[in-house]
């Protein structure tokens, strides 16, 4: 239930977001130590995709705790050693005791995990709707990695934004949506049983490369060259059409003179597609992205095998724009999400949220394990580490205890952001976890986490609040590493910009020394 930040840059562009990494990227942080934290968020974003805010909060809290310890004249190296040990223990404990296999929970938990990440975002109210959508999208782009497992290349999920309508009317398309329009209005708007050719060259009048000149001695040949220029392209188009293509997508342009042939052959031609889009379309439909029609013999041919197939290609009007939709491609399923919202800022933020959710879904499905969210893991770890600390008699004990204390920042921040009483809820949560770890019969209590809507503590396993285990582990590891990096520093030397030199020079010149 976090709130958003609005960031205005010098040009006046507005970004509204609550994604930690995005906020920090847009803030121009100058302090070198603070930069470490910003990079930390970015790292988490790249690795896991979610939990960017948490990682920064934990790291900052660890530093705060370390500061206290340093004031008590504990050497930073002891703190570092303690933090490292604590982090290791914590990760081990998460893996052994707190993770739940998705097989035990059934399919619903994946949707639940997606919903959990979205609960803090702008689309929280529609999280059920989007959760399902995200999971469907991730399933659609699933590819086997050949070892019995699956990979989820979430980048293959194409997210398009169009303002208008409401968030609820966002749609998931089984296929690929392309933000282009057909080259000529005379073409059909819909092709069923499409055979798709993906070209990476222009269908324009053939033109010699720059610097190549043709010298003629017979002026009558000039006309022939002109004629030939037009014919080369015409032949190419006809070769492509003869191979059976009825949808031609190209990254380059298509001259008006070629359009007629496409129209006559009842084919759709689309010009100026993005190359990334075409690559994905080629993959999904089984087409080959051709950069030239030449074969090894130096002749120009268009192989039927390089055509891709899809059930349907249509052009649809969404908002004020038109989109090409390639539905149900043959080789591999693809997914595109078209987001709708009241304005562009809203759509941008939705895209970020959907991206986070996709990352989470991927992590959950790849690792097949989840942990309980809502501060449950942090509370459990905190209790566990405190007990663990007391078993050590060395100086690290203090550091580990501080680590344990710091972890509580997550549940307490959650509670405060939800406008509840942190002093009441966090101890309650801790006590639940303590009894779960001490008494065997209360084992179930370890799944207890916060219910921020009602402001109570509940069994979050039942409630379906899940996060990918890997995200939590990475968060702890990254946060600890970052804290350690900063703790190691005891001296800062700032190199002043070289302008000083120049002013010396100027001064000297003014004084007439030069």
């Amino acid at each position, binding site marked *: 239930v976090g*709130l*958003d*930040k*609005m*960031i*205005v*840059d010098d040009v*006046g562009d*507005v970004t*509204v977001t*609550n994604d930690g990494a995005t906020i920090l990227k847009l*803030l*121009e*942080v*100058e*302090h070198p*130590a*603070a930069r470490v934290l910003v990079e930390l968020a970015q790292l988490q974003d790249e690795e896991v995709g979610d939990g960017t805010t948490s990682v920064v909060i934990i790291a*900052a809290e660890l*530093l*705060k705790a370390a*500061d206290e310890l340093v004031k008590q004249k504990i050497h930073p190296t002891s703190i570092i050693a303690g933090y490292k040990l604590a982090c290791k223990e914590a990760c081990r404990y998460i893996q052994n005791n707190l993770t739940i296999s998705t097989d035990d929970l059934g399919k619903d938990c994946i949707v639940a995990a997606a919903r959990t990440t979205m609960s803090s975002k*702008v689309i*929280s*109210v*529609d999280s059920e709707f989007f959760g399902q959508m995200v999971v469907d999208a991730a399933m659609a782009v699933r590819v086997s990695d050949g070892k019995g497992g699956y990979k989820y290349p979430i980048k293959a999920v194409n997210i398009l934004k169009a*303002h*208008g309508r*409401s*968030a609820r009317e966002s749609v998931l398309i089984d296929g690929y949506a392309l933000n282009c329009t057909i080259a000529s*209005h*005379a073409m059909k*708007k819909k092709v069923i049983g499409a055979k798709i050719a993906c070209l990476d060259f222009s269908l324009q*009048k*053939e*033109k*010699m490369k720059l610097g*190549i*000149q*043709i*010298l003629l*001695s017979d*002026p*009558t040949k*000039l006309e022939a060259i*002109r004629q030939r*220029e037009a014919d080369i392209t015409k032949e190419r188009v006809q070769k492509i059409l003869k191979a059976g293509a009825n949808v031609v997508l190209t990254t380059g342009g298509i001259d*008006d*003179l070629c359009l*007629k042939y496409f*129209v006559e052959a009842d084919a759709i031609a689309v010009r100026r597609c993005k190359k990334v889009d075409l690559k994905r379309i080629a993959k999904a439909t089984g087409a080959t992205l051709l950069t030239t029609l030449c074969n090894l013999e130096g002749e120009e041919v268009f192989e039927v095998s390089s055509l891709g197939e899809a059930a349907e290609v249509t052009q649809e009007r969404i*908002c004020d724009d038109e989109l090409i939709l390639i539905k149900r491609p043959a080789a591999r399923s693809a997914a595109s999400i078209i987001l709708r*919202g*009241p*304005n562009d*800022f*809203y759509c941008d933020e939705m895209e970020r949220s959907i991206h986070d959710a996709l990352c989470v879904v991927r992590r959950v499905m790849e690792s097949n394990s989840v942990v309980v969210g809502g501060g449950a893991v942090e509370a459990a770890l905190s209790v566990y580490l405190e007990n663990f600390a007391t078993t050590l008699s060395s100086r690290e004990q203090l550091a580990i205890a501080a680590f344990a204390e710091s972890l509580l920042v997550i549940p307490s921040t959650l509670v405060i952001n939800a*406008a509840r009483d942190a002093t009441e809820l966090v101890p309650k949560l801790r006590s639940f976890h303590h009894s779960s770890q001490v008494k065997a019969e209360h084992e179930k209590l370890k799944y207890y986490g916060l219910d921020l809507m009602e402001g109570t503590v509940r069994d979050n396993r039942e409630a379906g609040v899940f996060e990918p285990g890997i995200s939590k582990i990475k968060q702890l590891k990254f946060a600890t590493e970052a804290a350690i990096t900063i703790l190691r520093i005891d001296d800062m030397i700032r190199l002043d910009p070289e*302008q000083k030199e120049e002013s010396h020079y100027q001064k000297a*010149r003014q004084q007439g020394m030069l």
Partner: protein
Amino acid sequence: MMGGGQPVIVLNQNTRRESGRKVQLQNINAGKMIADVIRTCLGPRSMLKMLMDPMGGIVMTSDGNAILREITVQHPAAKHMIEIARTQDEEVGDGTTSVVILAGEMLAVAEQFLDAKMHPIIIIQAYRQALEDALELLNSDEFSMKVDLDDEQKMVEVIRSCVGTKFLGQYGDMACRIAMEAVKIITVETGNTVEIDVKKWARIEKIPGGRIEDCCVLDGLMFNKDVTHPSMRRRIEKPRLILVDCPLEYKKGESQTNVEITGETDFSKMLELEEEHVRAQCADIIALKPDLVITEKGVSDLAQHFLSKANISVIRRVKKSDNNRISRASGATIINRTEELKEEDVGTGVGLFEIKKIGDEYFTFLTGCTNPKACTLLLRGPSKDLLNEVERNLHDALFVARNMRLSPAVVAGGGAIEMALSHALQEKAKSVSGIKQWPYTALAQALEVIPRTLAQNCGGNIIRLLTSLRAKHAAGEKTFGVNGETGELCDMKELRIWEPLAVKQQVYKTAVETAVMLLRIDDIVSGSKKMKEESGAGAMPTDESMMQ
């Protein structure tokens, strides 16, 4: 950060950061401000705004989107509000003023809850829930009603209520007729999908002069061009039409070709060749015996000569989009290579080709098309600024007509539907549990802003009117609203004011979602990257010193 003694500079010092309640209140105020700007533009008694742009141009309009587009705002939240007017315009075309006023009001009613330290998330949840309920109610038969598309009377009524609030209101009948006709022309039904692309196929052409009553829809097209040569025919009945998008003149090849001339005769031979090429092109065209050739590119004098000798009129440098429309209206195919001309490519759908002189300029008319599918709306009026406003009004009317065809359902206008929804939601609010009930009720009350503004704009007694309106709705009379002309209470059924359901739905969705987005913000960070200027200034003197 680390709790050191002296302050640690973390952020760039040029950034300004504001957070907490102040930001929330600021956002709300920004929203209200924008709503206030166009508040007087709602309803039949709306006023025009005159806007001057930095270049000195004048825009006169009562269209919400057009106004907001022109004003430049600083506050980021205000930018949000402006964006939604655009969204509304692009999605449904009408209701741009209502959406901004409504969003502003929804923000305003949230203020009291923020003051009462209610968490924004709770307000948001309540808003979203209310929106869901409202949309559900809107779709039910009690609030909306289906319209028979063939019932022209009803369609005209709907368009009239849209146009009625605008400048064109005085010419309501004419505007309705124009919009209806235009949409009917460009509608293409393929199987079960209906395609109506107003932007592409209905062109609005403005010619200052004449009276507004002279505006009309052509069953064909018109564009601002004349034949290339005065001796060509200016009036042809049932012309055979050829469209080309290549130049009718000699064009060099794309590749760089150099010719080395050795013999003296070679040069004249080359020129001859060029001539020959043009002659061949013209021969291809003449072979099909057209009466009219229209090209997107240029026509050389030589080609003109050949064609005019064959009694063919030529029009050159027509816009691509115009050419597409002509192609659609006449059934001709646009040809790029004259060698490939075929009999089928000739368009015969046009009834009359005529060039008329209006004012100081010549205009080509292609009218009497048998199956137009594309049309030009010819607007006349005293001044350019006025015509621009008429165009915007008609654009709205066209969109309304289009929406009606796509989703034929209407709700009662004149604030009646808002009042009815507000009443129904307030009833529903009683079953909402917890503190959510407050914002839920507030949202319902916020809907009343539409009838209230209507009443305000026509100078009615707001309090008396609204209370009696509320009483009517409580008694179950769902179609009672404000008569925007007189400021009296009346039944919208009798007054025949209807609005398309699609527009209203979009208004509520956009307004609520924008309000939600703005309420979620608790921090604004602005201004950065100012450092460059300083370093630039520092570098300047050295450059100068180098010069010396």
